[in-house]
């Protein structure tokens, strides 16, 4: 029972991530830097990591990327988002697990977005075979800092609400 329950919650997280992914692609980018985006779906991966763990975060994030790219994207966008998602989830998972008392969710989210940027620039420079693309990294880092703070705050608020309702559901279950 507990297993299928977890499956349902993870699926809900994936669905939420895909929804955010789609919504985000409809929002015009508020930055003058091409390639920068809000990273709203990062809220979901952060939640999956905090609520369940790194492995579950990876599952949710990879599924989110696959479905999101199928719904609105291309093969190349899948490569970029998958590489960024996997590396940032790993880094965020490590940060949550081992540096919990050093960083709040905001810090973890910043780490994730910077890793995401770095992975994407690396993949892009391998694909285009020019390392000059790294000159673009500082701008992405500063934007990633800003969006990382934003998504971290959002994840923090959602986590408080969600863990309350999750624990409520557990007690309801136990009473039955």
């Amino acid at each position: 029972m507990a297993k299928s329950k977890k499956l349902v919650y993870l699926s809900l997280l994936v669905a939420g991530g895909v929804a955010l992914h789609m919504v985000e692609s409809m929002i015009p980018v508020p930055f003058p830097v091409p390639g920068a985006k809000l990273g709203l779906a990062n809220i979901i991966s952060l939640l999956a990591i905090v609520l369940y763990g790194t492995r579950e975060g990876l599952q949710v994030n990879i599924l989110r990327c696959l479905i999101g790219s199928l719904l609105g994207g291309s093969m190349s966008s899948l490569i970029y988002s998958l590489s960024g998602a996997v590396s940032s989830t790993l880094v965020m998972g490590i940060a949550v697990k081992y540096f919990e008392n050093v960083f709040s969710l905001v810090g973890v989210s910043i780490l994730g977005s910077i890793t995401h940027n770095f992975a994407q620039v690396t993949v892009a420079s391998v694909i285009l075979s020019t390392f000059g693309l790294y000159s673009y990294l500082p701008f992405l880092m500063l934007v990633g800092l800003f969006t990382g703070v934003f998504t971290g705050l959002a994840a923090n608020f959602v986590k408080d609400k969600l863990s309350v309702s999750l624990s409520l559901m557990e007690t309801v279950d136990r009473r039955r």
Partner: protein
Amino acid sequence: MLTKGDKILIATVILLAFAIFTGFQIYGFTGGKTYAVIEINGKEYQKIALGEDGPKLQLKLPGAIGEVVLEIDRDRVRVVSSDCPDKDCIRQGWVSRPGQTLVCLPNRVVVKIENDKSTGDLDGVSF
């Protein structure tokens, strides 16, 4: 809400961003040597290394219908004068970045800027 670690992280990221930025400003983007490759009638005529220590000279090229005078100013090239009817090659002005070209069609003269390290010939990338 922000912990001490968060603040240190934010400061580190900002510093790192500026460090990478200034690093690229100082040491340049590609490295490698840039060349001006001159082609006349489809055949390579001359290859000139450009850069900070590049030559400062004027070059007279034998075009198909007349003479083309090229000016090379260290890291950039332009057409000064040409015996062609429309003078489009002169209007292209200075070129210096890899991938840029100067073309005088009536004279069959093409000057390409090339770099031995970066391909630099991507016109656009979509993702």
